[in-house]
């Protein structure tokens, strides 16, 4: 008997024209680790919320969901609460009580558990999670990752049979999200709890998952084992599900497609070789590389195969590859020159020996931090958690004042500037888009901003911005009702209406689905073409490797390893893209899938 039997379920929100979920038909077996992917707004959250009565939203539902053979609606509420656990996206808003210990008790107190029972379960959970040292801390003293762990622990105290997780790591940094996801994998492995999770970052979880479901516009497009679904994603046309694939699998499929066409051409010639090829590819279907280790094994064997082949054709292979390798290196360098480094653009922002501390008696968070950004660059600053990246951005935006040192904008010291002028030059986009919204609709919000900036308030004047950001479809919506990527667009538009020359972005890719990330990248490219300088703070290695021009690391209060993106990632060992780790011995300057495909070529 399946744990969940979802039969022909559709769901429509009140006053909405179209249903969010359309005829969903899925089975979730006991012990499954089901991963749901899809662009934001495709119905992932709605589907998860359908699986637990207590969190089911208002609206009309048709079809039938049964849990262990019983209709979900008929399930006794004590059972429903304790057997089906849910963790939501935002770590902060789910917590009710003021301290960790109280929060862990909360669920059990609600269900009227005996005191001894509560104590035992809390003791167990705390031990399993290793959170002894922060058990009695107030919630506001915890980091986002710790808060999310408290949420998970609180749900687990009821010993659920199934865990529903709604993008639980979207708001966490990579280190915290890795820890969290490994915990989920442990819960799945060791306690055999069924997991249903929606998630964007396939790279980190796909190796734990047993099943993968793709949702698109409220339809289940595909739901099967992981390799089968990955292969399905690759078969679709470019740009639909491709962005969701882990980069290593992306390379694998791209290479396979290339080979397929080659084989297709060869089909007219030698059939014998062809059959063998196809058979080997069938075998590979079952071993799609996802992790770096798998990727490396696959890549090295491919590389050897190709070279052996070349060896048969020509005798001077090693020479040639070396040459090719060198040429590859040379090419990337010249390419960079052609694409905008012919004449060095002027230095726009200069950060000089800046010191900053939050309070008198605590250590400096920025110490002798210096760097500069040239016009039109997309500069990315990396750094561990709490190392002061966001602080640095805030000192530029003027929200914090450094104790020592100066920041110059094209030679002029920012602290001597009138604050109004400073705001005209610098646009700041924080992590939380909701902070910018005060109006009922996006359109009103844009108009208000226009008036505030002193333009005449006619909509056609901002038509340009609306078009640039492709905001037409949600102009009349409430800013809280649109997706995270759309909210970010609106904020970017609001900030850019003041026409700043420097754009500061604090973790712009956090919580965005891969498609929204690509849209953001296109926007940033457009902005750079208009002469804007962009500085962003990020944890997102893959995004940065593809789109940034310069990167640097903030460590121990100072800036280190500042260099162009390719050099930055190819010289790093730990802090680099998954792609580079796979190919670094053969192709030392390739950091993205595109690089590898271009350099591998002939």
């Amino acid at each position, binding site marked *: 008997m399946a744990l969940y039997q979802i039969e022909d379920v559709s769901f429509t929100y009140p006053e909405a024209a179209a249903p969010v979920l359309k005829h969903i038909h899925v089975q979730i077996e006991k012990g499954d680790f089901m991963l749901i992917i899809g662009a934001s707004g495709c119905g992932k959250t709605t589907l998860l919320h359908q699986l637990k009565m207590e969190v089911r939203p208002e609206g009309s539902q048709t079809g039938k969901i049964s849990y262990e053979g019983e209709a979900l609606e008929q399930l006794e509420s004590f059972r429903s609460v304790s057997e089906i656990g849910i963790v939501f996206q935002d770590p902060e808003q789910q917590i009710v009580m003021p301290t960790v210990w109280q929060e862990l008790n909360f669920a*059990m107190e609600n*269900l009227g558990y005996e005191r001894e029972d509560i104590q035992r379960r809390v003791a167990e959970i705390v031990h399993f999670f290793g959170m002894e040292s922060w058990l009695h801390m107030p919630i506001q003293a915890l980091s986002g990752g710790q808060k999310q762990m408290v949420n998970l622990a609180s749900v687990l105290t009821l010993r659920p049979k199934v865990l529903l997780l709604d993008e639980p790591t979207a708001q966490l940094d990579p280190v915290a999200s890795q820890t969290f996801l490994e915990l989920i994998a442990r819960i799945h492995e060791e306690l055999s709890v069924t997991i249903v999770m929606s998630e964007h970052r396939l790279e980190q979880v796909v190796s734990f998952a047993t099943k993968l479901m793709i949702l698109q516009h409220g339809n289940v497009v595909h739901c099967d084992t992981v390799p089968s679904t990955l292969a399905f994603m690759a078969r679709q046309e470019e740009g639909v599900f491709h962005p969701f694939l882990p980069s290593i699998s992306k390379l694998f499929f791209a290479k396979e497609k290339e080979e397929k066409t080659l084989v297709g051409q060869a089909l007219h010639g030698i059939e014998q070789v062809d059959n063998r090829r196809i058979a080997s590819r069938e075998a590979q279907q079952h071993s799609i590389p996802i992790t770096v280790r798998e990727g490396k094994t696959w890549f090295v064997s491919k590389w050897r195969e190709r070279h052996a082949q070349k060896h048969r054709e020509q005798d001077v292979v090693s020479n040639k590859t070396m040459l090719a390798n060198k040429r590859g290196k040379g090419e990337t360098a010249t390419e960079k020159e052609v694409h905008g480094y012919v004449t060095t653009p002027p230095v726009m922002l200069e950060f000089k020996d800046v010191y900053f501390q939050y309070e008198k008696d605590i250590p400096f968070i920025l110490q002798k931090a210096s760097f500069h950004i040239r016009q039109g660059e997309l500069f990315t600053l990396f750094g561990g958690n709490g190392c002061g990246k966001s602080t640095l951005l805030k000192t530029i935006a003027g929200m914090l004042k450094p104790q020592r040192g100066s920041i110059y904008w094209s030679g002029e010291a920012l602290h001597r500037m009138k604050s109004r002028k400073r705001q005209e030059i610098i646009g700041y986009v924080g992590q939380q888009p909701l902070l910018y919204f005060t109006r009922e609709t996006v359109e009103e919000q844009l108009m208000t901003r226009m008036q505030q900036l002193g333009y005449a308030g006619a909509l056609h004047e901002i038509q340009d911005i609306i078009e640039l950001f492709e905001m037409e479809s949600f102009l009349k919506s409430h800013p809280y009702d649109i997706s995270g990527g759309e909210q970010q667009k609106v904020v970017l538009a609001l900030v850019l209406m003041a026409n700043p020359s420097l754009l500061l972005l604090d973790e712009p890719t956090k919580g965005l689905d891969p498609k929204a990330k690509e849209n953001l990248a296109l926007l940033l490219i457009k902005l750079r073409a208009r002469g804007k300088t962009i500085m962003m703070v990020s944890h997102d290695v893959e995004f940065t490797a593809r789109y940034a021009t310069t990167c640097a690391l903030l460590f121990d209060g100072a800036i280190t390893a500042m260099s162009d993106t390719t050099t930055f990632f190819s010289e790093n060992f730990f802090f680099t893209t998954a792609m580079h780790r796979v190919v670094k011995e053969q192709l030392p300057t390739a950091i993205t899938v595109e690089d590898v495909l271009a350099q591998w070529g002939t």
Partner: protein
Amino acid sequence: MNDFKHLHPIISFSYFFCVILFSFMMKHPLYLLVICLTTLCLHKLLDGGKALKKSVFYYALLSLFVMILNPIFSSRGATILGYVFDHQVTLESIVYGVLLAVALFNVLILFKAYELVITPEKFLYLFGTMLPKLTFMIHVSIRFVPVFQRRLKEIMDIQKTQGAFQQDTTRRQKMKEGMETLRTLITWSLESSLQTASSMRARGYGIGKRSSAVHYVMDSRDGLVGICMSFLLVIVMCGYVYGLGTYDPYPQLQPLHLSALFLLHLLCFCLFLCIPIFVLLKERLLWHYIRSKM
């Protein structure tokens, strides 16, 4: 180390309740002095006086204010010292003002010590069984006050970068910007409270009678301290009923009568007040002793 904090909440709560009551009832200079000294001592032992240091200046200022105010408004008493703007200033009203000021000061610093010992959690444990709904509400608000404070700051920071809160704006503009901030805070908080409610429902809030995990067990030391406290309390209260421990400067200032009975009563009063100090000091001595033995 801070062992008074680890006594059963009923014991520590009753201690503070009694002492605060005493400082209202027993307006006798010596008794007030005892309360003042023991409470200061308690502060010193609890956290080295850190919490008190922050606010003691304001407490003193407030008490001083009361001290000056009483002789200005009250002209009761037989011993007239002189006239200020046709208002007679009496010795009795000055003394009464001083007593009142010390009593006020005592209550203020007692509440500060109370805050250190009786955490909201303990308070709710004591009174939660009577009003479970209210208890829960208080808990939730304890959690969300700092959250709102932080959100407000974040919103204002963002608005500053958007050009609000400039020095050169008019008052009307500032009001408008303030309203805008409040509006953002409310919208944001309402939105997030929907999620909080959903997470509460998901974990079974409201489906039945809640139990409580908080439990403080009375141990033998609590019992001992409790017995000592009740014994001393009975003596002090009996003495009070017979007129000991009170002093009224009106209508005419009297010398302090130091009878044997009075001194015995004062001693019991002192012992009662020193209970937390004994508990704390014993712990320190014990530590000292253990270390010297090792």
